């Protein structure tokens, strides 16, 4: 009888994992991927400060050194995020270095990014949840950069300009476009995003 219960328990556990959707994400299990649909979803929460102030970070792992500097505090560590993207066979660009960052645009698999949360009317695109001063569409690419990400431990998951450290970044601008050259500014869209601390699901899909 005990054996039967154990087997039933295992089946139930794996069935729950197999059928888990993005809405089942928790801080303990903050990332999920779907190899067939080629999507990665992770749990994050809104940082209210960047609905009103500019930043160059879309999402950063909360325990990274840049954890409080992004529109979304991610619960997923950068290594796990990178691994999840590799598991859906996304191709990293790995063309950014600390030396060429200001003259090079990030390459790699192009990804569409969407955000949703409990009570949201729909899943919003990155262009809807972010106020981009030039109104140019954001083009996120899987830069990779695992070595730099692990060395710097900034926690950067998605950056708004081409980045040699962030796992995914926006190929429209080269590094320095936001902070140094002021070519563009970005912040969260307070008219769409929920208040500070609201948990959201961010989904990346291979284009």
């Amino acid at each position: 009888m005990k054996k039967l219960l154990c087997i039933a328990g295992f089946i139930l556990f794996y069935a729950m994992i197999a059928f888990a959707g993005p809405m089942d994400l928790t801080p303990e299990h903050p990332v999920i991927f779907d190899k067939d649909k080629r999507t990665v979803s992770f749990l994050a929460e809104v940082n209210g400060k960047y609905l009103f102030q500019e930043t160059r970070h879309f999402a950063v792992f909360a325990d990274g050194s840049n954890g409080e500097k992004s529109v979304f505090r991610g619960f997923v560590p950068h290594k796990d995020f990178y691994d999840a993207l590799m598991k859906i066979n996304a191709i990293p660009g790995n063309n950014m270095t600390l030396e060429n960052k200001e003259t090079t645009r990030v390459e790699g698999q192009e990804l569409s990014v969407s955000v949703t949360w409990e009570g949201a009317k729909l899943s919003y695109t990155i262009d809807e949840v972010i106020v981009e001063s030039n109104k140019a569409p954001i083009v996120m690419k899987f830069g990779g950069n695992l070595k730099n990400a692990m060395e710097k431990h900034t926690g950067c998951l998605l950056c708004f300009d081409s980045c040699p450290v962030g796992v995914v970044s926006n190929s429209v601008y080269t590094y320095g476009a936001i902070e140094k050259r002021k070519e563009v500014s970005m912040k969260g869209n307070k008219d769409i995003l929920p208040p500070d601390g609201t948990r959201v699901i961010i989904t990346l899909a291979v284009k």
Partner: protein
Amino acid sequence: MILSLVLSHSVWIDMRIKTSLFLPLSVLAWTGAGIFLKKTPPTLLVLILQVGLGIALIYTCGTDISAWAVVPAVLTREGLFLKFMGLSSINRVLIFLFLTGNVTLFIFPTPLKKTHPLD
């Protein structure tokens, strides 16, 4: 708070240093100075700082009241390591401390000054 607000308004600085850490530093400095000098802060200085805070808020948040309700509270939560508190609770504490401080300093200053006979 004035320093934190003004510095965090620069993206370049905000992305490089934790501007909110000026909060615990200034709390320590003011408390230390108060204990060491055995004095309450001069009312004129407090008034100037309050006007400065108002200007800093307008400079960083504009006239958007929702920004006023979020940015100082986020800086306070980060600087004083109050991650367990929501922004509305932090705002309530800040308003309470602001009002209590002003009432103590400007409306009922006598009991505090009596403790310092050298003043």
